[in-house]
């Protein structure tokens, strides 16, 4: 049944540009997909290994700034710039991970928060490179591949959708692989995992790098889709927002990041006019969720259906 739901969702996503005539709505959904990619990254590290990376948005920023700068300053085309953005994010992720993963629990969260804020401070203050608070504008659209052009809402939507599909595919493959099971084994019981011969440090680092890769990919997509970029996209509050989406969707589930992001973006849309006050509801909701419903929407759904559907 879950497979049927996935196919249905994919069909709706592909048909969406033909279903909604307003390009405004398409833009909102595409932006939600981009956020969802970053939330998948957060899910890899928090959901699979139980570590909360509060610097996640900074890695999103590394990908985004790399893509934006390589195109506007170095004149690279989009595709190699996107690749370089993801690589930059992963390399930095590896460096930060090697150090931060020696800490545990609260220390890890505080450490990564500090790294994230430092990176955001650099984005704000290195004005010659990053344009300071104004950021970077006029990032060109991707060059056409053959007769396929990427200038316009619909092709960009499909490009973002493809990145999201790739992200989900990676997460499913990882989840079902030996390494994915090792992630979960460590989250459940670190000592037991170590006793069975798992190299805990290396496995954690792998998860962290995968997580920062997805953050970088999302950042690159953000720069491409919006055509402009500022340091406010990389702050601690953005990480907090992604965390909110993840908790509501369901930590550690495959569909959770997408469901949480889409549901909250949709609710925010319904609150037009009072949208900036949405956290008056979302804040207490987060508190209530971790207390009474830590599984989130998808986790709850899985538990409900687990009784009569074998996964």
């Amino acid at each position, binding site marked *: 049944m879950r497979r049927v739901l996935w196919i249905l969702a994919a069909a709706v996503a592909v048909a969406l540009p033909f279903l909604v005539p307003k390009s405004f709505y398409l833009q909102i959904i595409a932006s939600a997909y981009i956020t969802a990619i970053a939330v998948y990254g957060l899910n890899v590290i*928090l959901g699979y290994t*139980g570590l*909360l990376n509060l610097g996640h948005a900074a890695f999103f920023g590394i990908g985004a700034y790399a893509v934006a700068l390589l195109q506007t300053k170095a004149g690279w085309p989009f595709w190699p710039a996107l690749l370089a953005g993801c690589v930059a994010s992963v390399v930095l992720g590896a460096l930060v991970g090697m*150090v*931060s993963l*020696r*800490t*545990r*629990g*609260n*220390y890890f*969260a*505080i*450490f990564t*928060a*500090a*790294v994230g*804020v*430092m990176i955001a*401070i*650099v984005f704000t*203050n290195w004005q010659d490179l990053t344009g300071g608070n104004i950021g970077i504008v006029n990032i060109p659209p991707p060059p056409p591949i053959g007769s396929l052009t990427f200038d316009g809402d619909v092709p960009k939507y499909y490009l973002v959708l493809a990145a999201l599909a790739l992200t989900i595919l990676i997460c499913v493959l990882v989840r079902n692989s030996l390494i994915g099971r090792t992630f979960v084994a460590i989250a459940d019981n670190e000592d037991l995992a170590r006793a069975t011969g798992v190299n805990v440090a290396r496995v954690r680092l792998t998860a962290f790098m995968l997580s920062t890769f997805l953050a970088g990919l999302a950042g690159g997509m953000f720069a491409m889709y919006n055509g402009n970029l500022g340091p406010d996209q990389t702050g*601690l*509050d953005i990480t*907090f927002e992604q*965390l*909110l989406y993840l*908790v509501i969707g369901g930590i550690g589930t495959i569909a959770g990041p997408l469901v949480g992001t889409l549901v909250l973006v949709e609710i925010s849309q319904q609150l037009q006019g009072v949208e*900036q*006050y*949405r*956290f*008056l509801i*979302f*804040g*207490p*909701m*987060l*508190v209530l969720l*971790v*207390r009474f419903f*830590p599984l989130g929407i998808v986790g709850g759904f899985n538990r409900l259906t687990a009784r009569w559907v074998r996964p």
Partner: protein
Amino acid sequence: MHLFFQELLNGLVVGSLYALVALGLALIYGTMQVPNFAHGHLYMLGAYVAFFGVTVAHIGYWPAMLLAIVVLALVGILLERLVFRPLSNAPEVNTIIAAVGVLFFLQTLAQVWFGGDYRVFPSPYDRVVHFAGLVATQQQLIIIVAAAVLMIALFWFLKRTLTGATIEAVAQNRAGAALVGIDTNRVSMMVFAISAGLAAAAATLIASISLISPSMGFTVILKAFAIIVLGGMGSVPGAIIGAYILAFAESFAGTYISSNYQDAIAFGVLVLILTFKPTGLFAKGT
């Protein structure tokens, strides 16, 4: 050399404020192992309470500070009771997530009620004082003295009163404290009240030399975390020493290196410490 002493004085002012904020955070962490990411937003709320006390209710500076302390102590109790106590057996990450929820709520509440603009808090003590060639405002001197008085009062309370001793007992061993008949829940509530009250006092003190806004809690909270990691998570004297060290480092780096990256120092220090000592300086046990 003159510039050096002037920066020393500025560092002392900023350090006093950091100490009051970090102290509250350390107190909560020490007794409940809760990293209260919403602490900076309690500080922000305190600044607004005092601001409206002075500008709208016209009750004067010191009564406004008292009002802010009382109101925030109540908010602290409410938070402990409604948010953190029910999560005391949940995974660490859940506590952080709940704190993030509280932080979002408080920041938006401030934006709705007070507007997003920066506001100027009028200080009744804005005369400039010259002393041995150094320049300071009266407010800056008041900050140094008031912070010292509050810290001494807190130490006296923790070390010389029975109620204070219960806090120390819970910090040392929660189960043991409960066994000898200490009401640990009451201690947790008390700690949250003191912590939020100190944040309100710090906010009232600083508000009159800088601007207040709904987002003023964000930088403060991260610096406070840097400080308590520096001072050993949960250690009260450590938090005070850490606060002054960080403030001096920022003050001198701002003058002699670059003021753009002044705010990054705290995080640089934090990253360095945790790089070489993943459990923090002066950590108790493991």
